[in-house]
């Protein structure tokens, strides 16, 4: 039959080239996205990018990649990249809470081990559910469908490839003015007035820039600023010399002298910063303009000191990092689409004249000028369009659309089912929050335009998480026959019975995974369970630098600075001990605190493993139905759960298990998405599962290494490891820190979770068991993305009605896939540029 040679060539699927490609691309994306995620707070999965790159490398450069080989390449790349979100959402919180992560510390390796274990377990736990979710439930997985469309595009004919390309270009064009403004460069002096007028920079930024320019011109900065820089350098060196591992061999007196030196320098630096600011203010004539000068970046002082010492050119001060006003490529905000002016006739005038051209002393109403800067607010910013304000909806109603082609594409690919997500968002932001505000059930300090944000943080999110839990539980119950059938089928596969089932990984994998999960989580929980819960001595307020002086209280290990402090605690009355313990949240016991520490660790491990399995199902279901996944919500619940079991003081253990879970559920969702893509292109599930399970453990190692590098750089550059005051503010970790302090302060809205769960479970009783999950997800997510996503769903419905469903699938899917890819590629490119520019 064949007109070629008689010997049959092997169809390329799992190849060395695809494995090397996947690992390299995944590692690069992992490192870049880890940095970007710590900086801006969200991450990119990257399957679509890897699929596009796969074509370029495997088919283009190597000229031999098949659809299935490229699929394996993208599977590995996303497996290596994906665990980063789980790590950066959780681990940095330890740094924010004062823990130290170093290559030499046990904590670092325990957390790394937990994350690697989580990555493998997440994938392994979800393997048996492949049949139920993909073969039986047929979940859509919009991004995975988009990746399949990319992979199939060369075979689907030139027209579809062109549509895909048009989608990518269109998406990049739409997203460019939303994303490019992140790329900042120093503004020209003559452009400063215009930038102030457009609201791109403040007048304070302009004044500081003009001063810096004057310093460069004169090759001299105010001596207070230079002194500030020198002292800051000295402080960083003194802190380095004061680290426990550096001064370990010194005498007690020498150690004390180093600690004193840090104390002295801290006071001097704080004073020098105030003096530097005063010097800059003094150089400005107008007393009003002087009050616009706030604290300047430390980098300005450091570079000034270096320049004054002749160690760098003065022109180095012309940089955004030192406070020089930035300019950026064109963004939507440059369109200057603002609300019409609306003057408050009753308001006493305020002198805004110095703000810039066109500003007057008339006070505008709060309706059009919420930030009270004397100008009507922008309706279109770089990232969003405020349709609610354009339509004149009451301020407590929020209707904002994100300029995010990926959300539009994901909505289109989801189609009609995604409308339920939109419905939940409408319910939360256009009905529930406004009613609560109007009824006076929000605090009186919350104004009408703050109602949406207050409702989101205090009501929608906790209720949404509850709905997700209840909905998912009901989904599992409703799907029990399908799950049973899937397990039966896989059990048959283990015996290698039929052609169909030989393609599956058997149940043995699950058994091995469960045992490994329990063992690893037990080891981690047991180790962390006996570690001190505090890093600051509760008696002396000094940093605890050794584990030599500890005692047990309420089942917790508490560490002290020295023996004297420990003795003082032991000699104190019960009431005083409780008060001291309260500062570390050690006054409350966990549910399992009374148990033997090893038994407690074993129980936490069992409950943690069960929770990982359940949370993995929730995340995979959410991703499968909508493309969104509530990872941070699940991390939050995990930390809360472990703190309830181990006690509110057991932060290290809670974060450790939270990190393992977070990595596990992201990997579970990724595994399922990759298997969906594989299904659509006809890949063998077993091969994908095996390569993914083998390669996914590399991901956390890369992320932790990048994290260590960032921490080391930050400590050297800013004197703090991460968070506020550095380039990497770690927004998600800050949110988790707030949750931890919330649990410790007894501020968690457990009742809202419970009521939400009841509503979610009942919603799932109808014809569609996933309803609770979808409504919960939409209440959990910010409205701006839901609304754009909803538009995508509506477009799909409209196109299907007008042109027919087949047409909508055939031509709409590649276009929507292009929207997802174009946005992701542009985001990665912008992040890479930001990263390279430092």
């Amino acid at each position: 039959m064949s007109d070629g040679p008689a010997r049959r060539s092997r169809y390329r699927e799992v190849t060395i080239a695809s494995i090397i490609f996947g690992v390299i691309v995944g590692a690069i994306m992992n490192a870049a996205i880890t940095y970007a995620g710590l900086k801006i707070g969200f991450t990119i999965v990257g399957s679509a990018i890897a699929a596009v790159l796969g074509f370029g490398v495997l088919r283009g450069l190597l000229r031999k990649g098949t659809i299935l080989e490229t699929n394996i390449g993208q599977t590995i790349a996303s497996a290596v990249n994906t665990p980063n979100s789980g790590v950066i959402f959780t681990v940095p919180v330890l740094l924010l809470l004062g823990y130290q992560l170093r290559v030499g510390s046990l904590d670092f390796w325990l957390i790394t081990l937990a994350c690697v274990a989580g990555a493998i377990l997440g994938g392994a736990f979800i393997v048996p559910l492949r049949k139920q979710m993909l073969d039986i439930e047929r979940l859509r997985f919009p991004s995975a469908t988009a990746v399949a469309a990319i992979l199939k595009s060369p075979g689907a004919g030139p027209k579809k490839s062109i549509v895909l390309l048009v989608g990518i270009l269109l998406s990049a064009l739409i997203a460019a003015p939303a994303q490019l403004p992140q790329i900042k460069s120093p503004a020209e002096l003559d452009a400063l007035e215009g930038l102030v007028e457009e609201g791109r920079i403040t007048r304070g930024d302009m004044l500081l820039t003009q001063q810096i320019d004057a310093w460069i011109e004169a090759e001299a900065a105010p001596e207070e600023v230079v002194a500030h820089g020198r002292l800051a350098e000295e402080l960083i060196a003194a802190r380095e010399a004061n680290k426990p591992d550096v001064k370990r061999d010194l005498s007690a007196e020498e150690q004390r002298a180093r600690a004193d030196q840090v104390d002295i320098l801290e006071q001097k630096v704080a004073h020098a910063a105030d003096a530097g600011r005063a010097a800059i203010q003094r150089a400005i004539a107008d007393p009003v303009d002087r009050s616009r000068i706030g604290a300047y970046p430390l980098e300005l002082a450091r570079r000034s000191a270096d320049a004054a010492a002749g160690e760098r050119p003065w022109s180095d001060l012309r940089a955004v990092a030192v406070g020089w006003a930035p300019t950026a490529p064109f963004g939507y905000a440059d369109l200057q689409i603002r609300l019409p002016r609306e003057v408050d006739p009753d308001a006493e005038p305020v002198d805004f004249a110095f703000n810039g051209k066109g500003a007057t002393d008339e006070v505008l109403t709060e309706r059009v000028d919420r930030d009270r800067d004397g100008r009507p607010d922008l309706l279109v910013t770089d990232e969003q369009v405020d349709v609610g304000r354009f339509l004149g909806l009451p301020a407590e109603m929020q209707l904002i659309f994100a300029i995010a082609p990926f959300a539009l594409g994901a909505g289109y690919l989801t189609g009609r089912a995604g409308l339920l997500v939109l419905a939940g968002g409408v319910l939360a932001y256009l009905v529930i929050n406004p009613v609560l505000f109007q009824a006076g059930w929000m605090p009186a300090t919350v104004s009408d335009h703050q109602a949406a944000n207050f409702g989101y943080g205090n009501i929608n999110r906790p209720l949404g998480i509850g709905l997700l839990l209840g909905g998912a539980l009901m989904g599992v119950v409703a799907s029990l026959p399908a799950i049973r059938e899937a397990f039966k089928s896989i059990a048959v596969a283990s015996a290698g019975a039929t052609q169909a089932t030989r393609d599956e990984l058997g149940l043995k994998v699950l058994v091995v995974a469960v045992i490994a999960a329990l063992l690893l989580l037990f080891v981690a929980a047991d180790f962390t369970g006996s570690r001190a819960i505090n890093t600051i001595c509760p008696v002396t307020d000094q940093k605890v630098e050794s584990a030599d002086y500890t005692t047990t209280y309420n089942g917790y290990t508490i560490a002290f600075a020295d023996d004297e402090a420990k003795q003082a605690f032991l000699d104190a009355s019960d009431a005083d001990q409780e008060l001291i313990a309260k500062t570390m949240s050690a006054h409350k016991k966990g549910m399992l605190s009374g148990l033997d520490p090893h038994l407690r660790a074993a129980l936490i491990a069992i409950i943690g493993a069960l929770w990982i399995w359940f949370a993995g199902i929730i995340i995979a279901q959410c991703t499968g139905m909508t493309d969104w996944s509530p990872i941070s919500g699940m991390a939050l619940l995990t930390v809360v759960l472990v703190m309830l079991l181990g006690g509110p003081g057991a932060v290290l253990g809670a974060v450790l298990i939270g990190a393992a879970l977070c990595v596990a559920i992201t990997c579970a969702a990724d595994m399922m998405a990759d298997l969906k893509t594989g299904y659509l292109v006809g890949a063998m599930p077993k091969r994908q599962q095996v390569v993914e399970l083998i390669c996914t453990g590399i991901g956390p190692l890369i992320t932790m290494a990048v994290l260590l590098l960032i921490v080391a750089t930050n400590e050297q550059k800013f004197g703090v490891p991460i968070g506020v005051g550095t380039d990497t503010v770690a927004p998600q970790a800050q949110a988790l820190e707030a949750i931890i302090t919330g649990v410790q302060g007894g501020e968690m809205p457990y009742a809202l979770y419970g009521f939400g769960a009841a509503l979610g479970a009942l919603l799932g009783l109808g014809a569609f068991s996933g309803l609770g999950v979808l409504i919960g997800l939409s209440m959990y997510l910010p409205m701006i993305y839901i609304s754009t996503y909803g538009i995508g769903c509506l477009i799909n419905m409209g196109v299907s009605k007008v042109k027919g469903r087949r047409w909508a699938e055939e031509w709409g899917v590649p276009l929507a896939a292009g929207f997802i890819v174009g946005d992701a590629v542009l985001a990665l490119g912008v992040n890479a540029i930001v990263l390279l520019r430092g």
Partner: protein
Amino acid sequence: MRPLAYLLLTVSLIAGALAAATAYLAPLDALDETDLLDDNGDAKLTLSAPAGVIDPRAEPELAASITALHTELDAARKDPKPILLVRERPQVELPPIEPVETRPTGQQVLLARESVMPIGRGGDPLTPDLLAALKDAEVESVKVKSFDLMRWRFAALPGLLVFGLACAGLLAGAGLVRAAAKKEIDAHADQPSGAQESPEQAFEAIHAEVVALKQALPGLASDHERNAMIVDRLGVLQSEHIQAIIDARAPLIARLGLGGFAEFMDRFAAADRKINRAWSAAADEAFEEAMDALEAADALLPGAAEKLKPRS
């Protein structure tokens, strides 16, 4: 029936969510000063959000009394470090910074003018004095850290009652949705629409097409032509007949039960995946692989057909 069911679900969900949102509100009219303190004299309730506001410029005297109350509340908090061993911190003599004359900007003036002062702050214990100040300012309820079923009110009604009714509404709505779905499926089974392909018809069409394709391929001149035919004909199969089976989920579940549906889909999906593999291999010009996959799909389809028959 469906619109009514969805209306009931929506209304119940809103009512349930609103009732849940009031769970941490403590209505002040139900609180008595004597209920506020425990046996040790500590406040039982703590505010989790600010409560009540005053305009300090319009009511300077009241603002002063509220400030005094805040100071009192702060002072009453117990010393968290009763045995703090203060280590001498080295003090540095630093020169004073010459003050710089500044004046507030228009924005600062406006924000200060429009700022309000909370009567109770988040984290404040609800003491009798604070309760009195809040009642004087006609504050109706405050948000507290702890939940109490007995305290829970939704407007004038017990919160639990409203939430319970909402749950009952959701339950009834779910029942109505299920009944409506069953009715529609039964009606569809009695009078199948001519325009829509039934799952059986779609399944037969798939099997027939796979067999026909296998038979047609040897007649073509080259592997390239054979691959092109596989891509074209399986492409149509995927977007038409396979989609028809996926769309028939609800009637199939109604007929086969969820377990039976799962058994059918499990087997059908195995064949479907082989069809997808045949398409990919053909698109990659790997004819032998495409043919193998087609053969495998052909072998798997009868097993799925068995599961499509209703159980006796």
